């Protein structure tokens, strides 16, 4: 496969950096399940945009209508527990959510989010004090720097370092563009 070998693999430093994200906080609690995010009743749909209006329909029916582009979903411990449905981060991304912030994430949700190029960012300070981010707070996430600013309190918090492979997913819009490149499709 000489053609593919000649192709220069892009390295992290070549990729455009993710710009800061600014938006309002939608506050959620601990143990938010993938069923809470999007119920299985909608999972036979082939179109994520079609089911996105049902995000959080059970626990937060005002969410899908009110959420603005770049707003943040802010959870506590174990955000995204349950099923392997990629539609859970998928509908949040489809609604324009900027990132999910939480004290900790369930493993598969975390992977699925990055695979879609959608940031799921751990904020360790949320683990010890959930009140550092409140409903409606305006936040700025500089994920390349690992910093989160709460405009109301003017406090800046560190976010957990993202492995470089996952940071690349955010920079290019997910794992699929990188797979295309690997398969020599671009």
């Amino acid at each position, binding site marked *: 496969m000489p053609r593919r070998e000649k192709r220069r693999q892009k390295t992290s430093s070549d990729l455009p950096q993710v710009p800061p994200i600014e938006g309002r906080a939608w506050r959620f609690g601990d143990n938010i399940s993938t069923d809470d995010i999007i*119920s299985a009743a909608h999972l*036979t749909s*082939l179109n994520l945009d079609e089911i996105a209006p049902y995000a959080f329909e059970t626990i937060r029916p005002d969410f899908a209508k009110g959420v603005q582009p770049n707003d943040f979903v802010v959870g506590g411990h174990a955000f995204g527990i349950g099923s392997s449905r990629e539609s859970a981060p998928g509908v949040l991304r489809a609604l324009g959510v900027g990132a999910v912030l939480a004290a900790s994430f369930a493993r598969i949700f975390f992977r699925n989010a990055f695979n879609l190029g959608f940031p799921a960012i751990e904020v360790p300070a949320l683990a010890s004090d959930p009140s550092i981010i409140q409903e409606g707070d305006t936040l700025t996430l500089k994920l390349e720097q690992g910093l989160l600013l709460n405009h109301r309190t003017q406090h800046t918090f560190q976010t957990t370092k993202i492995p470089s492979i996952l940071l690349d997913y955010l920079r290019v819009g997910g*794992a699929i563009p990188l797979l*295309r490149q690997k398969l020599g499709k671009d």
Partner: protein
Amino acid sequence: MGQTLAEKILAEHAAVSQVEPGELIEATVDVAMSHEMLGTRVIPHVEAAGIERLWDPNRVVVLLDHWTPAPTVEAATVHQQVRRFVKRFGVKHFYEVGTGICHQILADYGHLRPGELLVGTDSHTTTGGAFGLFATGIGATDMAVVLATGRLWFRVPESIRIILSGKLPNQVMGKDVILHILGELGADGASYKVLEFQGDGVERLSLDSRMTITNMGVEADAKAAIMHVDQKAEAYIRARTRIPFNIVKPDPDASYVQTLRYDISKLVPQVATPSLPTQVVPVSEVEGTPIDQAFLGSCTNGRLEDIRMAAKIIEGKQVAKYVRFLVIPASRIIYQEALREGLLSTLLTAGAVIGSPTCGPCFGGHCGLLADGEVCISTSNRNFLGRMGSSGSEIYLASPTTVAASAITGKITDPRKGV
């Protein structure tokens, strides 16, 4: 330094002699399993990535289990997409509607082999670990990557060692063991970690109960739940596959982040209360709670032992008035065996409803949903708010014996007390 079972399997699949927790590795996958999620969410990624052939169609297992038989045109269309994919890419192992629930199909047809690395687009893929392999759930994008390349990156997980000793008391089952452990671990107690089960208690458990335990490991967010393979497990696997495999054992000096010990001979029936599988109490604390539905089935507890134990409890008795008792065998093979043993007849005589193999009610898909204000006691794995239907319904999770005893009385009942 010694390595745990998970570390040994991952090191072998990354073609290195040693791996360490926290390290990112790229590993070769042995088996990739997908169900309806292939039709809804994987195929768009396959198209977007321009995948023209699978890395190895012989290592791909595809089946239909969640919406079976199709309850809506939309679900039928998803099934149609899956069949088209299977034909187009020459997927070797395809199991039609009615064959069973994915994790049971993997066991029934010899796809679970010790020492291997298996991924599936279902969080309960951890079930397979009962046969000494690293089996883990992945999402749709990861599946597209595996289908194209046969490889996937993993963060090497830390392992929690769980040592079981003793023999279960009468009417207490594997489900009670895992519910009790989940109650102690909590919803993220095993996040990014592996549960490694060992001890004489494991060897005394039936294979059915072992699969129930590894199945629900994911409710503590475990990446995999792996058991040591004994003669009983080995004989089961050899009867179903001719593909050679290696039984992997951990090093005696392997390092674990945590060791938990349980004497299961003292265990009492456990119940997970609404609305978390890790919110667990002994049955005595919820005894007498009225129920509207009892469900025996799912990848957690739809196996032969489960149906046998339930039939034994309900034989000669009747399901309580205004209560429906649903029984869904996890696979066609289990269904046929239950039929042959007369178990289904016993259950039907008692007033149970028998369904064909499907995940249906467990995830709120179809075949037995709940109305507002209703209460279900279920052998399934999750009791999140609205999981089985209305967000105003409630689910208690328990063992097949507790569920069968409750179906007779119409309220949550300790199966150790004659009903």
